[in-house]
């Protein structure tokens, strides 16, 4: 099996967000960057599938600045065989990113192309699906359970109030949701081995796209409310406030 995993470098979810001087992006100083958490599920799925198959190749593809090399090394330390960095500052338009990634993956003989269901920075939730459309491949998004067998896959995805069950032939694109697996941590041996694994860098230039960010701002602060009281005796007053003041029950 030949499997590609697409990876993005994002700010850690615990990072405090400060708007940068341009008023359109974040101030990256002092922010810790990590592999996108949903992409870690995709990495784990790829490594586990290759282990189960006993043969094949896993490749991680990231689009980002040179700083993303470190993120790729983390994936290599988990057990991915080699990495490709598409050097680009990125785009607010996910379709432009999808076009660059699709061009890299096209004709490379991948049986499976994995993504995280979304990146926790821009919340675009679309690049994996768009890549599948561009490559005219079957795609199942936001997968929380995956079985690959005999050239086909079955998958489950959560929908409101239920679980959708899907099937398709390989080659295919899958985007991973939480629940699909538990990503492994890189071992010390893996970290050492990652330093020697191939990492290819290629500059790419993205189109202008149709989406322009005009501003980035922090949301209005929520005013701290009132402590109604202490212990169960405060409950009647709370219920009264919810009914007469907030009018929500």
């Amino acid at each position, binding site marked *: 099996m030949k499997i590609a995993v697409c990876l993005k470098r994002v700010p850690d979810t615990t990072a405090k967000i400060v708007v940068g001087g341009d008023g359109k992006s974040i101030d990256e100083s002092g922010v810790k960057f990590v592999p996108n958490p949903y992409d870690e599920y995709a990495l784990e799925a790829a490594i586990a599938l290759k282990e189960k198959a006993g043969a094949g190749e896993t490749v991680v593809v990231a689009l980002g600045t040179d700083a993303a090399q470190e993120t790729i090394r983390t994936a290599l330390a988990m057990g991915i065989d080699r990495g490709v960095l598409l050097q680009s500052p990125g785009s607010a338009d996910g379709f432009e990113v999808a076009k660059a990634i699709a061009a890299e993956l096209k004709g490379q003989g991948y049986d499976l192309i994995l993504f995280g269901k979304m990146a926790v920075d821009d919340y675009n939730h679309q690049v994996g699906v768009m890549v599948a459309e561009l490559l005219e491949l079957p795609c199942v998004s936001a997968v929380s359970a995956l079985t690959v067998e005999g050239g086909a896959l079955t998958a489950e995805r959560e929908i409101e109030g239920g679980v*959708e069950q899907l099937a398709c032939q390989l080659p295919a694109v899958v985007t991973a949701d939480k629940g699909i697996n538990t990503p492994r941590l890189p071992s010390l041996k893996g970290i050492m081995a990652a330093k020697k694994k191939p990492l290819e860098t290629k500059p790419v230039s993205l189109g202008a796209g149709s989406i322009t960010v005009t501003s980035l701002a922090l949301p209005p602060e929520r005013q701290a409310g009132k402590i109604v009281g202490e212990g169960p005796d405060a409950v009647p007053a709370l219920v009264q406030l919810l009914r007469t003041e907030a009018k929500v029950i």
Partner: protein
Amino acid sequence: MAAILAVTEQRGGALRKVSLEVISAARALADQLGASVDAIVLSNGAVDGAGNLGSAGADQVLAASHDAFGLYSPDGYAATIASIGGNYAAIVFAASAMGRDLAPRVAARLGTGCATDVTGLGVEGGKVTATRPVYAGKAIQKITLGGSPAVVSIRPNTFPVSTGAGKAGAAGTVAVPAFATRVTVKGVKAPEQAALDVTEAPIVVSGGRGLKEPGNFKLLEDLAAAFGSAAVGASRAVVDAGWREHGAQVGQTGKTVAPTLYVAVGISGAIQHLAGMRTSKVIVAINKDKDAPIFKVADYGIVGDLFEVVPRLTDEVKKLRAE
């Protein structure tokens, strides 16, 4: 006249409520653009509730019928919408499980970008603008969509439903084009108990590590049942510990919710959790630690032992609803 396409959702032959939010959002946008609204209903037969689409703001209701459209058909729905999408100034989806899968498919087929999970829509200089939370709501991005059509998905529970239009939309049909089925939806497994999704419930009761063990979530289920239309959510800590399904997780690596009332029980309020619920209309916190960060965003707080406070709250809510 320019037109906007609103993509509705049905499940099991019944229109989903989020469809009315989509049409209302499309209507508001259409009024600014001087455009009309077409609503598309994809199904394999009659859809309960489709008659309400006119009063929510649709000028025309387009039926796209196909035997394979009883369940979601990723390839069939995308092919159908893409076949007419080029005629519209904008296409509005819900950022639901279906819309998040479908909107980028349609955008890619039309060769344009897609703005997902928007919480506000407007028009400036003839172009569609949108606001959307990024970094799980820790920041708000404003964007301009230069593509034609402008493809957007709206966050559920965010756009008000208008029912004032008071007219039935004209009826039309859309021919479903031939399409290749690359992915088959085999079925939908319903949970053992039909539960509201945290992203769509008007009231969400969430629990964290303060509940001490998984069995104690029964207290929150009881409270949710007392409220009526409520869902039970959870913090990342308890989902990671395996106490609750990941679908219930509220926060940056889980779901972002915006209910009318959010009750945080035994949740300290880590930054990634706050990111997922800060746009709730009213927040109530119950925590034994008076310095917990959750009280900084809560409208109302009770400092105390949740094992005493929650059962009392359940009783009081039951009493109120019995009145």
